[in-house]
């Protein structure tokens, strides 16, 4: 291998390392932010059917203990979807109380059953501390 060929090879290696470093260090995009579904024992004193909380690297869906149903979970996911369109990763906290909703089109087949299974898994989780919201249950939402 000539000297110039070795320089070229080294340059290619360095470019690959640099590219990989950029990819690994990139801030969490909307699609790899964790989504956590939480049912606190005591829901915040806001007139809301559900609340979406957005932090720097995760999104949290707060469902009321007496209203943690498929509709509440579905509208929370919908509200989160819209929030991510507006801002993929906010730099400050965002709280999005959903004060009300109306169904304007039927859900895709099987989706309600899938969300129902998510809530069943959540119900089986142990009660634990959830920071400023006191105690409750939570689960990681795994999407489709």
């Amino acid at each position, binding site marked *: 291998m000539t000297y110039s060929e070795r320089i070229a090879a080294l340059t290619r*290696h360095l470019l690959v390392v640099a590219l990989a470093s950029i990819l690994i260090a990139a801030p969490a995009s909307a699609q790899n932010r964790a989504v956590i579904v939480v049912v606190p024992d005591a829901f915040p004193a806001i007139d809301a059917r559900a609340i979406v909380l957005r932090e720097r690297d995760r999104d949290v869906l707060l469902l009321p203990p007496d209203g943690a149903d498929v509709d509440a979970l579905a509208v929370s996911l*919908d509200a989160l979807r819209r929030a991510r369109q507006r801002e993929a990763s906010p730099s400050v906290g965002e709280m*999005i109380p959903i004060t009300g909703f109306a169904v304007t089109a039927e859900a895709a087949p099987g989706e309600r059953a899938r969300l129902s299974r998510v809530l069943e898994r959540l119900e089986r989780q142990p009660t634990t501390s*959830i920071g400023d919201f006191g105690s409750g249950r939570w689960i990681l939402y795994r999407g489709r």
Partner: protein
Amino acid sequence: MSRMKPPLLCALAVLVVGACEGPLPSAPGAPPEVSGPLDLVAPRLEPNDLTQVVRVGREPNAIDEAPAGVDVGDLEFGDDDVGDEYFASIVDPHTSAYFVPGGAGAAGRHHYTGNVGRVRTTAHVAFQDMHLGSQSSERQENTPFLLDFGQLKFIWTGADVNTDHECGLSVQGNSVHEASWEFFQGTGVSAWGKVSQSTGSGVVRQRDCATRTETRSVGGSTSDGERYLLCTYLITYDLETGQIYRAERLFCSTGVDDDLF
């Protein structure tokens, strides 16, 4: 050069796969699989944080501003008005509801005597008579006690909701109207002669949604992800302390589908 390709490709594949590994559990901030404590920070929301509040000092001879179409002329104290014309009084209190391009709301107004006037109005939004949300607005104006001279003054406020929905919505408003005399205007200290009255508007409606397709496609998309008309607030806060930065007014929207999950 051909001898360099396999190691180069392997290195690239390893690094790219490592960078593009799925979001769980390696995504930053992702909690472990087993349920443990969560360190959530709650925004420190006070009851009035979602109300648009304005408190102003008013010059004794200020020209009254009014919403378009409202006459702020001379008014006579009538039999239905509250108070005493020599103390604080409320004259012609009224609430109206309305739709405008890109929004809906309710306005509350009244004339008053007394050096402190206050009106709080709430707009209630519904879809096909199902309540979706409410937005409140409050305005207080105070005049220096010694310079008031019992003038009849006008006050109003508007509670506005943003919406991009064009059919099926209705809005109704209600207001609490107040007037009083206060030595230390606007503080509630040494207040007397306070009077209060409530009013409500009729229901104002958009046109009915003609078809299910129209209901679904109002937001501009006919995809099956567009399932809900949502009313939400947006509150931004400090992630360390929970201190509220800003609370946006109520927004009702059908949104568009973008499969991010």
